[in-house]
């Protein structure tokens, strides 16, 4: 016992010991230190000195079975499912910056499955389902809030398009229902604009009850912690300079700032930097990197209980549990790695928001940021083994947050078995060779 502990009153030391014994009886299932209200209480009594690190910082070895480049949502989820579902644990996740520091660190966290195409809908339905069970799966509170999303519609072609989605979604068990304007206003009382005499009157809405929000940092940290508990290694501040291709054309490993690391299977999960990496082995992919911004208001008392999406006006938002409105819009024009704000795009988004929510005029902007995502010609992702044998890519995610669990699950399957998972089998690189687009441009934040 340290001097600090010996100075504590006797009763806390006894309490500590009793709960320790109780915890010892419960503990044994995984190496991972379990987060429970009991462990919280126990640690509270001992000044929180006994929490173990969420993930280790082991030395970087020079060989692994699988290397995952990018400790973002998709990379970490892939690592977890490789270990959990396929018992592949000799895995290193190489992250150029800090773990979970990419798009998953600055996200509007809208989780939904209201897509258009048969190839897409079941994938996102699965992802939503996995998200709903993720707190339990990872023993980490995702703060998953099944909020329901309401699309607020202003013109009939959009309503028709959404109804088309509804009828196809229905086949795959995802719900989407049309509601009248009165019901829209009843469920979103703060929506006081868009009246019959206004410029863009609300003509109705669509309700997607499966939609939810959660805490993005928890997703990254939860997956990382659980993967680490299975033996996956996290390596931060380890930028990959290039991929390495063997004489047989297959992937051999990667060149990092900390040396060469070999692996027969490499997964590239780096969002906007995908082409930068793949070009190092001469692999060209149909991707371009764009900037997408979001912003938050100051925290205020609960006002909006659903996720609000306005496809005609081009903005969407929800209210976080802390009280901030988290608002997003459409991407900027032009390729960009700047992760910054374009003032005219921002003003358009704010103007559109105030059109429907005029009471937000005196609500204040607290912070704003940008992230870079890479998009394909058809706004659908690429999840595939490339022409470079052993090199897997998960990219083109325009709206990749909601896809993290299913993306990780299916990519892990592909890496482990060599066969694509049924849910992602259409998201191939080669669909572009036949120009077989999976057009989802209406379902993302298109401008």
């Amino acid at each position, binding site marked *: 016992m340290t001097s600090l502990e010996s100075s504590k009153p006797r009763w806390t030391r006894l309490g500590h010991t009793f709960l320790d014994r109780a915890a010892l009886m419960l503990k044994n299932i995984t190496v991972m230190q379990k987060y429970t209200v009991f462990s919280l209480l126990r640690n509270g009594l001992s000044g929180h000195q006994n929490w173990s690190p969420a993930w280790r910082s082991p030395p970087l070895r020079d060989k692994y079975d699988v290397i995952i480049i990018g400790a973002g949502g998709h990379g970490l989820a892939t690592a977890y499912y490789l270990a959990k579902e396929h018992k592949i644990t000799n895995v290193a996740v190489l992250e150029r910056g800090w773990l979970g520091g990419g798009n998953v660190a600055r996200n509007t966290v809208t989780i939904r499955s209201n897509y258009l195409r048969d190839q897409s809908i079941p994938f996102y339905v699965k992802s939503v389902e996995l998200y709903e069970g993720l707190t339990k799966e990872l023993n980490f509170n995702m703060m998953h809030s099944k909020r329901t999303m309401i699309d607020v519609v202003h013109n009939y072609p959009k309503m028709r398009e959404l109804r088309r989605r509804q009828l196809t979604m229905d086949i795959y068990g995802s719900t989407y229902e049309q509601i009248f304007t009165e019901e829209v206003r009843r469920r979103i009382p703060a929506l006081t604009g868009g009246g019959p005499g206004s410029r863009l009157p609300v003509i109705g809405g669509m309700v997607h009850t499966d939609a939810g929000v959660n805490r993005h940092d928890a997703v990254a940290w939860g997956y990382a912690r659980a993967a680490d508990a299975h033996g996956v290694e996290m390596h931060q501040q380890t930028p990959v300079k290039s991929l390495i291709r063997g004489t047989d054309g297959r992937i051999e490993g990667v060149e990092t700032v900390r040396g060469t690391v070999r692996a027969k299977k490499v997964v590239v999960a780096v969002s906007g*930097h995908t082409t930068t990496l793949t070009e190092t082995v001469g692999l060209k992919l149909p991707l371009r*990197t764009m900037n997408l911004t979001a912003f938050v208001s100051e925290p205020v008392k609960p006002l909006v209980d659903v996720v609000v999406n306005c496809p005609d006006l081009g903005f969407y938002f929800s209210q976080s549990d802390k009280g901030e409105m988290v608002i997003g819009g459409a991407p900027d*024009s032009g*390729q960009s*790695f*700047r992760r910054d704000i374009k003032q005219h795009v921002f003003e358009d988004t704010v103007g559109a928001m105030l059109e429907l929510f005029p009471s937000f005029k005196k609500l204040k902007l607290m912070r704003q940021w940008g992230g870079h995502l890479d998009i394909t010609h058809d706004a659908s992702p690429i999840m595939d083994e490339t022409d470079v044998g052993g090199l897997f890519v998960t990219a083109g995610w325009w709206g990749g947050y909601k896809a993290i669990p299913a993306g990780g699950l299916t990519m892990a399957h592909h890496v482990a078995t060599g066969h694509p998972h049924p849910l992602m089998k259409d998201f191939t690189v080669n669909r*572009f060779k036949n*120009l077989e687009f999976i057009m989802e441009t209406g379902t993302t934040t298109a401008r």
Partner: protein
Amino acid sequence: MLLITCPFCGARNETEFVYGGPVGRDRPDAAKVSDDEWLDYLLIVPNPIGPVHERWWHARGCGDWFTIWRNTITHDIVDGPDNE
């Protein structure tokens, strides 16, 4: 909001222009070229961290289409390799 220099009108706000995508290869002779070459032209575009060659249209101005080199990190409009 970029400040873009139109060759005819001078420096104008980005809102006067419409973005026209990056400059890839020239359009090959579609009747003669191989499938792979055609697809490469159609789908693969430069995606650099650094200067990118791109097209802009002065839609709310003189109607001129022109190209600039813009750095994708700083957004500075720079001279291109052949100083266009």
